[in-house]
C-alpha cells in the first residue's frame, strides 16, 4: 500500500502543533502586558487645551503652590480650577500676551466657563475626594506625578482600579507628613517612616482570621 503522507508530514504536523500552542501563549502574554502598559491608560499623552498653560513655568519656575489655583483641594472633593479672573488677575500685569488669553477674556465677557481638558479624569462611576486624600497625607505627586516638571500637563499614573487598590491596601506606604503633602520634593521614604505623624488608621478588622480593610470596600470609591 502507498503512504498517504510523506515522511515530512509528521515533522510538519508537530511544527504546526507547537507553533499553535506558542501563539496562544504569546497572545495571552501580549494582552497581559498591554493592559499594564502606559499606552492603554493614555499615560504621558497631553490633551488639547484652550490656553497653552505650563505647570513647569508656574509651579516649577515661579514656584506657585498647588493650592493657589486648585484651592479646593484641601476642603472639597474637587480640587477646583482657577477662574478666568484668577489667571488674568496676574496676566493683566505680567506676561500680557493677549492672543493667548482670548479664551479667558471671552469667558469673562460672556460669563461662560473655560473648558480645560482633564487628563486625569476618573470614570463617572468612581468618586475621588481630594480633601479626603490630602488630609490623609497623600501627596499630589502620588497620583499626578511631577507636575511642576510638565510643560504640557499629562497623565502620570494609570489611575486604574488596581492603582488605587495598591494604595488602599497599604495606605501607610504612600502617606506623607502634613508638611510634605504639597511639598515638591518629598523626603526619602526612610525619613517618612520615622517622622510619619498621621498615618491613616484604616481600622482593619478580623473575620475568620482574615484582616479586612474598609478602604477596599466597593462603596468607598463607587456610588
Amino acid at each position: 500500500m502507498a503512504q498517504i503522507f510523506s515522511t515530512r508530514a509528521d515533522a510538519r504536523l508537530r511544527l504546526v502543533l507547537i507553533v499553535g500552542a506558542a501563539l496562544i501563549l504569546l497572545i495571552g502574554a501580549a494582552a497581559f502586558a498591554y493592559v499594564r502598559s502606559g499606552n492603554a491608560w493614555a499615560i504621558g499623552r497631553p490633551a488639547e487645551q484652550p490656553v497653552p498653560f505650563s505647570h513647569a513655568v508656574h509651579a516649577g519656575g515661579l514656584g506657585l503652590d498647588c493650592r493657589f489655583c486648585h484651592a479646593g483641594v484641601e476642603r472639597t472633593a474637587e480640587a477646583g480650577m482657577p477662574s478666568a479672573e484668577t489667571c488674568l488677575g496676574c496676566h493683566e500685569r505680567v506676561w500680557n500676551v493677549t492672543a493667548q488669553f482670548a479664551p479667558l477674556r471671552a469667558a469673562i465677557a460672556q460669563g461662560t466657563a473655560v473648558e480645560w481638558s482633564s487628563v486625569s479624569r476618573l470614570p463617572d462611576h468612581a468618586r475621588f475626594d481630594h480633601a479626603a486624600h490630602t488630609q490623609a497625607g497623600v501627596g499630589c505627586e502620588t497620583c499626578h506625578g511631577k507636575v511642576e516638571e510638565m510643560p504640557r500637563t499629562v497623565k502620570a499614573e494609570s489611575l486604574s482600579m488596581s492603582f488605587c487598590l495598591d494604595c488602599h491596601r497599604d495606605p501607610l506606604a504612600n502617606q506623607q507628613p502634613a508638611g510634605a503633602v504639597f511639598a515638591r520634593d518629598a523626603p526619602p521614604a526612610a525619613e517618612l517612616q520615622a517622622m510619619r505623624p498621621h498615618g491613616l488608621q484604616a481600622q482593619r478588622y478580623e473575620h475568620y482570621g482574615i484582616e479586612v480593610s474598609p478602604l477596599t470596600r466597593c462603596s468607598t470609591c463607587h456610588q
Partner: protein
Amino acid sequence: MSDITAPIAEAALRPGRWGFRLSVLLGVAGVVVLAISVAAVLVAGVGVWGNNIPHVWGFDLIAYAWWIGIANAASLFAAILVLRRHGLRTAVNRFAEAAALAAILSAAFYPILHLGRPWLFYWTLSYPNRMELWPQFGSALVWDFWGIMSHVVVTSLFWFIGLIPDLATMRDRAAARGRIRAARAYGLLALGWRGSVVHWHRHQAAYRLVAALVLPLLLWAQTVVALEFATTLVPAWHQARLPLHVVVTGLPSGLGIVLALAAVLRLALSLERFIDDADMDLLARLVACAGLAAGLAYAHELLIGFLEEDGTTRAALKARVLGAGAPAYWGAVLLSAVLPQILWFSRLRCRTAIVIPVGLLAAAGVWLDRWSIVVDGLLRDHLPSMSRGYTPSPAEWGLLGGTIALFVLVLLLFGRLVPAVSMFETRHEESEAEAEEEER
C-alpha cells in the same frame, strides 16, 4: 466479511441525495433565523425579549435546561452502553454521542446571550485583570460556566476518541478509491491510527475511562443547572429535590430524541442491518422506562409538595399544578411521562410512524416541564405585590427555533461526513458472534 462495514462507510462517502440536500437547506435557513435572533439580542439588548421583574429568566433558561437535559440523557446513555459493553452500543452510541454534542452546542448559546452585557461573559473566569476583581465561587452561575465548558469538552473528547479508528477506516477506504484529498483529511483526523493491537489496548482503556468520567460529569452538569434555581429563595424553586427532579425528568427528552434519530437514520441511511429491530425494541423500552422514572418524579413532587408544611411553598405548587400553571404542568406529565408508556406494547414500538412522534413529543413534554418550573414557578412568590405575567417575544421564539435548526443541521452533517455507526465496534461484535457460533 469486508461487506460488513461497507454500507456504513458508503453512507458517509456516497454523494448526497436530493432529500439530504433539501433538509440541509432547511437547516441552513433555520440557522439564518438563529443568526438574526442572536444579532437582535446583541444589538438591542435582552430588552427585545419578553422578560421583566420578576420574570428575569424565561425562554433563555428554559431552552438551556432543556438542551442540557437532552445532551445529558443522550451521552449518559452512550456512556453506559460503552461501559456495559452492551450490544446496543454498536448501533446507537455513536450518534447518541453526536446528538449530545449537537445539543450542547445549541445549549451553549443561552448562558452567554441571556446576559445583560454578553460581551463581558468572560468576567466569570478567574484571570488577572486591572480591576483586581475575581469571580464569586459561591455562585451557581460560575459552577455552571465550568459545567457547560467541561460538558462540551468532555463530550467531544468522548465522541472523538471513539471516532479515531473509524476515521482510519475512512482514510483507507478513501485512499483505496483514490480520493487522496479526502484520505488526507480523514488521515489527519485519524492521527495516523494503524490499528496496532497495543494501541487498541490503550485506546479502549482511555475510551472506557472517559465514558466512566462522563457519568458523574453529566449528573453534575444537570444538577448545577437545577442549583441555579434551587439556591434561590423562590418558594417553588427552593427545594432539595429540584436537582433530582431535573435530572430524572430530563431523561425522556434525550432518550426520546435518540430513539427518533435511530428511526430516522435507519430510514435515511438504510442501516437496518446495523440498527436492527432488536436495537429499536430495546431503545423504545428504555424510553418507556425513562417516562416511568419521570412519572415517579412528578408523583414524588406532588407528594412532597402537598405534605410540605410551609404554606408559601404549598401555595406555589398549587398555583403551578392546579392554578394558572396547570396546562404546562399536566402537558409535561402527559407528554414526557404518560405518552411513552405506550411503547410497552411491542406492536406499537416496532412502528417507525409511532416511535418518531412519541420520541419527539417526549422531548417537547420536557420543554413544558422546564417552562412550568422557570415561568410558572414564579406564579406565587413571597410578596404578592410583584407578580407579573411573562410573554415570550418573536426574538425568543426565533432563538428557540434557530437552535433546533442548528441541532438538526449538525446531525445531518454528522450523518453525512462521519460513520453514523461505530464500525470497529460492529466488526468486534460480529466477530464475537461468529466465535460463539463456532463454539456451538
